[in-house]
């Protein structure tokens, strides 16, 4: 190797951008609340935290819908989703309704386009066909214990390879919710499992194995990577959420004066409530906190706040049949 070549480095920034660019872009606006993080891609792990009833599962479902919708006309990714349901809250009819809403929107715009004398570009796809194709790309499994979860993770390897062979690679892996067996694993004896000198089925051991499996699966989905999205329900009750819900109105009035201070305070509270083992916390790259509160018109208003990376803005949205809608303040 001559000196000049060595000094030049392996590749220029431009060639690197050209190489990895197509893999990282266009992943961003999955769900309205995600629009603030623009570079979410297949090596990231997003954790959606929140109390029960803060639209965590709904959030994950929206991302899954975006992922499976066709590129042509719908702006989806035309990929597959693997969904691990750990707390049994997945509702297949809700998924169907969300997809239907997107298909109706699409058909309506197509019709308007034609009425305005637009070109009839290509054969309009049958709505039912699109629905079937989309729903066939969401692979679902259900687990009732950590061991079942681990063995499902191991065997999802086959599922990933199968989806790849159809040309619709798995782009998102959803776990809802990661803390479902927290108490069971904590209660397990930490040196159990028969064989000596191992962590066995303790919380620590299980989370280590989960992280290891997820990394393995991510390597398997080269080159697109695998975006891991998990929800995490609160295990410990907090003084913060309840208080905020009730005094939401008052807080809003003072928000301008001491918003930074208050947010730091709240963030501190959130960190104190972090209960998952360190091995999991290190694995998570992005964290979003969802909260719900009752608005004046008796509608439930949800807020989304990025904790990692920490952003100062809080998005507010409502949930409708067709998905999330951001409210402008």
């Amino acid at each position, binding site marked *: 190797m001559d000196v000049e070549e060595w000094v030049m480095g392996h590749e220029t920034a431009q060639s690197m951008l050209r190489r990895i660019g197509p893999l990282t872009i266009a992943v961003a606006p999955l769900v309205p609340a995600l629009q603030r993080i623009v570079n979410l891609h297949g090596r990231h792990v997003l954790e959606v935290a929140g109390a029960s009833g803060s639209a965590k599962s709904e959030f994950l479902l929206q991302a899954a819908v975006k992922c499976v919708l066709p590129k042509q006309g719908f702006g989806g990714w035309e990929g597959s989703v693997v969904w691990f349901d750990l707390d049994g809250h997945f509702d297949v009819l809700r998924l169907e309704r969300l997809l239907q809403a997107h298909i109706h929107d699409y058909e309506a715009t197509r019709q308007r386009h034609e009425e305005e004398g637009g070109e009839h570009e290509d054969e309009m796809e049958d709505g039912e066909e699109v629905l079937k194709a989309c729903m*066939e790309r969401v692979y679902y499994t259900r687990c009732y214990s950590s*061991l079942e979860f681990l063995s499902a993770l191991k065997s*999802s390897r086959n599922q990933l390879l199968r989806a790849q062979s159809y040309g619709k690679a798995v782009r998102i892996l959803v776990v809802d919710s990661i803390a479902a067996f927290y108490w069971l694993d904590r209660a397990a004896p930490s040196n159990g499992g028969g064989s000596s000198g191992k962590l066995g089925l303790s919380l620590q051991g299980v989370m280590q194995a989960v992280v290891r499996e997820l990394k393995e699966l991510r390597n398997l989905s080269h080159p697109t990577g695998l975006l891991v999205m998990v929800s995490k329900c609160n295990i410990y009750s907090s003084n913060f959420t309840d208080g905020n819900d009730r005094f939401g109105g008052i807080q809003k009035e003072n928000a301008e004066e001491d918003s930074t201070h208050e947010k730091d305070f709240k963030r501190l509270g959130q960190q104190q409530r972090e209960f998952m083992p360190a091995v999991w916390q290190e694995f998570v790259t992005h964290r979003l906190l969802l909260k719900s509160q009752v608005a004046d018109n008796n509608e439930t208003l949800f807020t989304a706040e990025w904790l990692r990376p920490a952003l100062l803005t809080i998005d507010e949205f409502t949930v409708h049949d067709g998905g999330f809608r951001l409210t402008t303040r």
Partner: protein
Amino acid sequence: MPRLDTLGLPSLTPSVLASFAAHGILSVEDFLVSENTLKLDETRSEAQRQAILDLVDYLEQQSWGFRTTWRMRQELKARGQQYLPTGCESLDKLLEGGLREGTVTELVGGSSSGKTQVCMQVAANVSCGCRAMVGYVDTCHSFSATRLSHMLGGLVGGRDASQRRAGAADEIGEAMKSVLHYSIFDIFAMLSLLNQIHINLCAQVQVGEQPKTLRLLIVDCASSVIAPILGGTQGHALMVSMGIILKKLALENHLAVLITNHTVGGEGGQPKPALGETWKAIPNVRLHFVRDWDSNLCHVSVMKHATMSCNRQTAFRITRTGLKPAF
């Protein structure tokens, strides 16, 4: 979980087993949890790689497996009726048809706010109207067969025996026979009963005398067996176990599960559901009950629902023959 050498997989030859054992991997559980498992890289011999792949296939067969959501939708459509009407018009309207099969519904409210009345009304309506078996797990001596028969009388028609049409008494008797009452007073008996019901349903063992299917399981009141054991890791683990078996009964055996929970004083004296944050995630639907003693109305509001917006309300009145809409 079984030992690897008992699985009978042809690729698990003695030499492969020995190489696994050298890493401390003796059972399927070790295979799942062990740190040394088992990357499929170049350092592995061909026999080992094949053994790992076969083990993964074995796990896939043993587990619940992966289904496409399209297949789940088709199965759901094929199964037919999904909602069990509660027999109380205003509640059915609130829930858009009644209790949904495959979900856990929780009724939350203070003492004598009408929770048990709803439980018995639903039991009466499902046993009589849907001609299905009902499991009624009673943890606080609140079940009353007399009250149930009054409610059945209200459904069959006629306030007293003298006003009823012919055959009505048989109908009531038939319905009473399909309500199975269990008295359970501690968490361990509860877990064993629920697991036994699950096993029986999976093995399609007939419950009771008639060839009817069990479609509704009521636990009134779930919190009174859980609350005494809370406060510590073990207690929470037992609580989560009970939540999981309830969900299993709902999802795998397609039951509608109805449980009740009492309230405790939250912040500022506001009543909130008992059992804390972890339990909050377990029911799919949660209804809140408040009794207004002046008008003798029970007010119900939706606290949590998977598919519809919350904060909707309704009310009903408790009468001798059942629950009647307030308006």
